[in-house]
C-alpha cells in the first residue's frame, strides 16, 4: 500500500519545526547552518510529496533547484563562519553585534 500524502506532510512539518527550533535556539554558527539545512530538506520532502499528489514532475525539478541553492548557501555560509572565526576566535553568533568588519 502506498503511503498517504498526509503522512509525508506531517513528517515534513516535524522536520521543519525541528530545524526552525535549531536556528532560533542555538548560538553556535554551525548548528544554525545545520538547522537551515534541515528546514530546506523538509521543504524538499513536501515538494516531492505534492509532485506525487498531482502526478506532475515540476515539483521534483524544483527540489533539484533547492538542492543547488542549499549547496551554494552552505559554501558561502561556512566560508563566512571561517572568516568570522578568524576575526573573533569564536563562532558564537551573538558576538556579532557590529555591522562593521
Amino acid at each position, binding site marked *: *500500500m*502506498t*503511503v*498517504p*500524502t*498526509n*503522512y*509525508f*506532510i*506531517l*513528517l515534513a*512539518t*516535524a*522536520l521543519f*519545526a*525541528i530545524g*526552525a*527550533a*535549531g*536556528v*532560533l*535556539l542555538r*548560538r*553556535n554558527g*554551525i*548548528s544554525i*547552518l*545545520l538547522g537551515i*539545512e534541515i528546514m530546506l*530538506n523538509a521543504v*524538499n*520532502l513536501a515538494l*516531492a*510529496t505534492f*509532485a*506525487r499528489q498531482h*502526478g506532475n514532475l515540476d515539483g*521534483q*525539478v524544483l*527540489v*533539484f*533547484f533547492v*538542492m*543547488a*541553492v542549499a*549547496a*551554494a*548557501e*552552505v*559554501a*558561502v555560509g*561556512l*566560508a*563566512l*563562519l*571561517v*572568516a568570522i572565526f578568524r576575526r573573533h576566535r*569564536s*563562532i558564537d553568533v*551573538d558576538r556579532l553585534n557590529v555591522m562593521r568588519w
Partner: protein
Amino acid sequence: MELIVFAATAALAIVSACVAVVHRQPVVNVLSLIVTFFCVAVNFALLGASFLAAAQILVYAGAILVLFLFVVMLLNAPVVEENEAKRPLQRWGGILLPLVLLAGGAAVLTPTLLATAATPTDGTAHALGRLLVGPHLFAFELVSVLLLAALVAAMVLVKRKQ
C-alpha cells in the same frame, strides 16, 4: 511494507534531526544529520522520485556534510556555552513556533487522507532531464551562474589577506 519503511525512516529522521539540533558536540550534530538526510532520501524513493533519492545522497551526504565536517575540524572551536537567559524573545519563539507548526501538521493529519493522483509519475533521470532542458532551461543555466557566484564568494571570504 511501504508503510513500515516509511514509519521506520520517519521516526529515525525525527530522532536524528533532534540529536543534530540539540547535541553539544558539533561532530555528533553533523553525523546524525547524515542519518536524517539518508532517511529523507529513502522517503524520496517511496515518493517515486528515484533520481532525487540518489541526488540527495550524492549531494547532501556525499558533499555538503563533508564540508561541514571539515569546518568543524578546521575551527575546532570550544563548545559555545549557551546562555539562554540573554535572549528571551528568541527562546520563546524557538519553542512556540515549532509547536504551532506541529499543531498545524497534526491538523493536516486528522481529515480524510488525501488521495494521490491516478497515475503517479516516476521521477527518473530521463523525465527530469527532459524537463530541465525543456521548460526549465533558463533556470538550469541560471543554476550554473548561481554556483559560479557561490564559488567566487566563498573563495574571496576564506582567502587570507596578504
